């Protein structure tokens, strides 16, 4: 008797659970939540959580934004796998808008919803070439790697890559860049040195698509980097693990020069963790790399309307002003003339419209691996 009653209540509970499961996606409140996935450093986490999302919610009180954060993109491969699998199986990936380096990889695999000015009006203000390079990703901010130097010890910073290499050899132990697998600022220096020995056509090919046949041409650049081992900080071929460590080494005066992200440097300067005598400059021939960061809306997202609304708002002058002047100090992707002139003063002297692009991720991954084989500790 008791057994039967238990079975009955279990069956009832199961039916109730099913009912909830069926009705939940249709309910109003759930569809108004936009699931945002961020794969980046903590400064980007702050940009979304402390600046963009509160302002978006103030403009659109009906919407709620839920952020999933992955520090340094440690789980990019898994997240890519999850979104790929969700698309293949026609399931909800649980993500509506992605901010991360793997957005262009998803774009190349045809997994992104393609933006067009009809449904995303503000995209009309974005540089066409930058938009095209996103392969379906929506560019929303930009940043560049710059050369930071201690102005107390370095009167005139190097202007070209050759000058920089000469300076490094003349000042042993005073330059550093982080291991490329730990952060983009060190990676940019490695790519720039490798690019020095490549033709323009080869560089373009490595940016555009996977090109394993060109990778053997990196040898000369990697040899140059290996020869720097005894001149960089540490002097036995050891390098800082990530972007933050390079910034710390500069701030504490351990090194006089290093490569840094423009936005991380500007934020540190504003926060006071970077002394005012550390300044930044860009080198030329070739320049350190930079580029846009892209947002992506997966094809399989169940709330494309909300994701589109948020992406369109991020491209509005109001939101771009927040990106430029807030804690992030990023570069805007819409013309400076549309922005608050006070906020854009900082960009005098840095060409933010023509940033030299980094390799596509497949080649970048191989370059990181090639560097680890050829340079540290050798």
């Amino acid at each position, binding site marked *: 008797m008791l057994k039967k009653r238990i079975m009955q209540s279990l069956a009832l509970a199961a039916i109730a659970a099913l009912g909830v499961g069926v009705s939940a996606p249709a309910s109003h409140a759930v569809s108004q939540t936009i699931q945002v996935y961020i794969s980046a450093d903590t400064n980007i986490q702050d940009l979304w959580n402390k600046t963009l999302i509160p302002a978006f919610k103030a403009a659109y009180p009906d919407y709620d934004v839920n952020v999933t954060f992955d520090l340094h993109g440690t789980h990019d*491969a898994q997240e890519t796998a999850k979104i790929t699998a969700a698309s293949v199986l026609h399931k909800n990936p649980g993500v509506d808008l992605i901010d991360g380096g793997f957005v262009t990889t998803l774009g190349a695999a045809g997994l992104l919803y393609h933006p067009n000015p009809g449904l995303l009006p503000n995209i009309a203000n974005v540089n066409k070439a930058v938009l095209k390079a996103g392969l379906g990703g929506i560019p929303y901010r930009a940043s560049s790697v710059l050369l930071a130097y201690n102005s107390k010890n370095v009167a005139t910073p190097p202007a070209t890559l050759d000058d920089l290499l000469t300076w490094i050899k003349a000042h042993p132990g005073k330059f550093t860049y982080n291991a490329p*697998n730990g952060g983009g600022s060190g990676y940019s220096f490695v790519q720039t040195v490798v690019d020095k020995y490549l033709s323009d056509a080869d560089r373009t090919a490595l940016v555009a698509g996977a090109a394993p046949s060109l990778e053997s041409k990196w040898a000369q650049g990697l040899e140059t980097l290996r020869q720097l081992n005894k001149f960089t*900080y540490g002097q036995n071929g050891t390098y800082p693990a990530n972007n933050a460590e390079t910034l710390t080494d500069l701030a504490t005066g351990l090194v006089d020069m290093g490569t840094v992200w423009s936005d991380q440097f500007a934020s540190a300067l504003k926060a006071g963790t970077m002394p005012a005598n550390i300044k930044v400059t860009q080198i030329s021939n070739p320049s350190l790399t930079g580029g846009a960061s892209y947002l992506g809306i997966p094809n399989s997202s169940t709330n494309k309307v909300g994701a589109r609304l948020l992406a369109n708002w991020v491209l509005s002058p109001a939101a771009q002003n927040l990106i430029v002047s807030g804690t992030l100090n990023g570069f805007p992707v819409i013309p400076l003339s549309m922005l608050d002139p006070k906020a854009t003063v900082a960009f005098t002297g840095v060409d933010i419209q023509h940033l030299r692009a980094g390799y596509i991720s497949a080649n970048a*991954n*191989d370059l*990181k691996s090639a560097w*680890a084989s050829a340079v*540290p500790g050798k």
Partner: protein
Amino acid sequence: MISVRRKVNRESSRAPHGARPSLSGFALALPPLLLVVVFVGIPILIGLTFSLGFTQGPNRVISLIGQQIHIKSHWWGTFAAYSDVLHDSRFLGDLALTLVVTSISTVFVIAMALGIAMYQRLIGGKKASVLVTLSIVPLFVPVVISAWAIHTFYGGDGFMRTLFSHLGINFPTLTSTPVAIVIGSVWTALPFSILMISSGMQAIPNALIEAARDCGAPTPKIISNILIPLARTPIIIAASFTAIGILGSYTIPLFLGPNQPTMLGVEISNFFGAYNRPQQSLVMAFFVFLAASGIAILYVWQNIKSARESGRI
């Protein structure tokens, strides 16, 4: 001596009267067993097939995304990914560093834990208890925090270098060297070993030590003939757990070690994430798995031996 140990073990750990194997006992053991089979065993099998080049079924998605994927060329698969790893100039250096750091750290940990445990057992008193309690503190400090603390302590502008520079001595920068990995590993692994070994030594009856003293046995003799043999099981458990833990460590070698060579835990993560070569990272994981199995066999053998001595099997 052996007969004494047997007697002690027999009296202390014999199963209570009336306990016999039953179905309900097996049912109690079933959930963890199922958990291990489903959530550990099956993924390992899938991983093994992927490392051998089976790229369909559960391995389909990862094969679409990963770079340098080798697809099986025989019915049983292919060893191409294994050959990749063995021919990679980084792998042998990484493996050597991993094994050397693991063995040196384990020896240090066990030696230091033995020292504290014997101090508490033979001399005892309030001071010894305070010492043991203090030595457990690192157990409650997250590894990330302690790794960063050690980094700032031994770094280029760290405490040690600053202090010695005031004395006119150039203290070496230890961060980014294998020495720093050993320091970090010993710091994190020591508390568990102290807990294991000191409680093992506390369980040794006083009568044995006093009898040996009455017969005129010097302290080294008491240590080598009574304390260490009777605490052998906890010592071996502590050593194998410490070694397996250090073998697979990630945070300590990432923060404190050199970029290259690095320990396999970090290299596996580099291959899986930064270089996007999941197959090769799995192959390395199987090498770590093999090394850990070697240590695990030692542990199981010791368990069986002590169970046999105490008459449980």
